[in-house]
């Protein structure tokens, strides 16, 4: 509104904004991200299809920690649920939104930290990116997902910080949570294809 001027409506305000532009923008962005991971995963599958099943992953390299990663993954899934609940409670103007969001953020951060520890131990066992095509794809795909998780945590952390000061809007939390949902939901596919495949 211009300073010192009262609004003089000329016609009934048109009801617009059928959707939240910030969320919509993130959804459009996720389309690209989805295709990006689709590219990575299909490249992985093409490379896997070139060799006999018996040497994929190559038998002479350290085995991927399937079990501990499954445990780690549960933290990520829990985090996704907590963030979703945080959005719901902020929409319902409930006071628990901040607690839920913080808990969700911590669970997500725990996932990233545990996965990082796993990488360190794999590298210590001699599984480097140059070891085999399988190892290259493993680090590339899981690392890319890790970067996305870090990005999602940064976005969520920014919203949490605003929630603490009481300046966060529902739209902001929603936009961050939609991206986080993408990070959470793409992970099971990666786990099944890369760890179990």
């Amino acid at each position: 509104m211009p300073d010192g001027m009262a609004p003089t409506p000329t016609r009934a305000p048109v009801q617009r904004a059928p959707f939240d532009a910030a969320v919509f923008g993130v959804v459009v962005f996720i389309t690209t991200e989805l295709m990006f991971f689709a590219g990575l995963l299909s490249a992985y599958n093409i490379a896997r299809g070139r060799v006999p099943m018996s040497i994929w992953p190559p038998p002479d390299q350290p085995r991927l920690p399937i079990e501990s990663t499954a445990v780690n993954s549960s933290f990520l899934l829990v985090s996704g649920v907590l963030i979703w609940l945080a959005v719901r409670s902020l929409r319902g103007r409930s006071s628990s939104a901040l607690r839920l969001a913080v808990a969700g953020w911590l669970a997500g951060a725990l996932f990233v930290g545990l996965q990082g520890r796993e990488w360190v131990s794999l590298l210590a066992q001699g599984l480097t990116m140059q070891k085999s095509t399988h190892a290259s794809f493993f680090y590339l795909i899981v690392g890319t997902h890790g970067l996305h998780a870090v990005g999602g945590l940064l976005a969520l952390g920014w919203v949490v910080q605003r929630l603490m000061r009481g300046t966060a809007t529902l739209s902001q939390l929603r936009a961050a949570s939609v991206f986080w949902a993408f990070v959470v939901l793409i992970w099971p596919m990666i786990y099944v294809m890369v760890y179990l495949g």
Partner: protein
Amino acid sequence: MSNAAPTATAPHAHEPGHAPDGHSHDHHDHHAPQSFFQKYLFSTDHKMIAQQYMWTGVAMALIGGFLAYAFRMQLAFPDKWIPGYGYMSSLEYNTAVTNHGTIMIFWFAMPVLIAAFGNLLIPLMIGCDDMVFPRINRLSYQIFLLSAIILISSFFVKGGGFNGAWTAYPPLSANAEYNMAGTGSTLWVLAVALEFVAFLLGGINFITTAMSARAPGMRLWDMPLVVWMIVIASILFMASVGPLIAGAVMLLFDQNFGTFFFNPERGGDPVLWQHLFWFFGHPEVYVVLLPAMGMSGDIIAVFSRKKIFAYKTLLYTVFATGIISFFVWAHHQFIAGIDPRMANIFTVTTLIISVPIAEMCFLFIATLYGGSIRLTVPMLWALSFVAEFLLGGVTGIFLGASGADIYFHDTYFVIAHFHYTFVPIAVIGFFMGFTFWFPKMYGKMLNETLGKIHFWITILGFNMIFIPLFFTGMWGDHRRIYNYSHFPELHRVALQDLRIVATVGLLIMISAQAIFLFNVIKTFRAKQENPGPNPWHSNTLDWSAPSPPPHGNFAELPTVFRGPYEYSHPERESDFWPQNEPPPGSST
């Protein structure tokens, strides 16, 4: 929301929801005097960002054009001294062709057609004050500028610029032992990846703005063609670029970190890159084609004073093109060793995609039929766009047929074919949009006579370059040879003469651009009366804003009452009916 002080603040009636982080209001303090950098580098105004994209793109086109000049001279007069360049080695030749292709597609066609015209036209044509995410928009241009700087700097590092062709097929692109340009290749991949990030941010803005910030009364089916087409092109880009970014990351790792995603000796797959590249590369053709198509449609409607023939059908063909464009990519790989049965399928899809494109051309012709055609400069460009693009499309049929492609693959026939698509798209598309919206952008009119001279010489030069190349291609000229005198079967007088004709055509086309620059500079310097907001008597909302549009575009945000193409309505005195003109008898 407020019309009490119509010019003081950009109205916000249509600002939907909230900006992602609540900071979209910074583009309103336009009364404060702005420094040069604030105004030209850090502006969030969509029109300024459009200008930035446009002139950066034109500057890059000059570099790309210079590279074309250098290597065409080398081809016509092998190993002779090239004025303005010097002697050209084989390595430099490969660098020149690689970067000519890269620059013209990624740093000229994309920024000018999508980013510049998208930024300029979408808010103006849908009647809102700015993009939904102005700061993301500004970031988009800054990243784009950075990518351009990185690409240019790659020419000057040790080993020179990247020389593995714009398609960057491994193992040539992946291994510095083969391409002898380690740093240059890495910078090239980096620049391309950054450029994609820039357009990703732009695309998010275009789609979101067109979907959520339209003026009251404007339905989706009331949007002008060019807005539709830029939105669909953005969707195509966003959906297709992911796999290429994945491939680019893998290529970067192969180049620098000793992985072997594309190295067959160690379990990688070089054809994998081709799949990832062309999965993007083919939709990319339509990403740049559609905005040019949309502009030509709008311009043809204005200058034939007729409604676009079958507006909705036209859009359905665009949707069809967009969908089919994801299923044709392997027609670039017929001789890369893919399964012939797969080649058959891709032949069929490739032939199918020509149907909606042909349909679009027919609808434009039907729009012209019976219209009162005015051959202004923008109209000439729009008509030539359809005509020349048609030649590119028709020759594409030969290449899309997997049998014929075995012979034509990697010959100059391919070069001529895709230049008959890309030159109309990028060069003609730019001139078409620039001459048509010049009065809107700058509040002045270009000289029509100079414009027509420029048009005819450019078109003459363009055809003179590429018609001979169809013939040399059919006679077997391979496209990646820098000196044909090393190949006795290709070093014939007749063939060499055709190569010289093509080079002369290029010289004509380049020198014609001096007329264009002269015309623009003369118009900028001349004192000229403002032609008013709507010199072409067009219907769309952009022409209801003042020329040039101020910050916030419209004094009062418009309301839309009808579609964009109501020309020559039988019950009206004037032959146009602006979208925002209230219907007769309404109280406002």
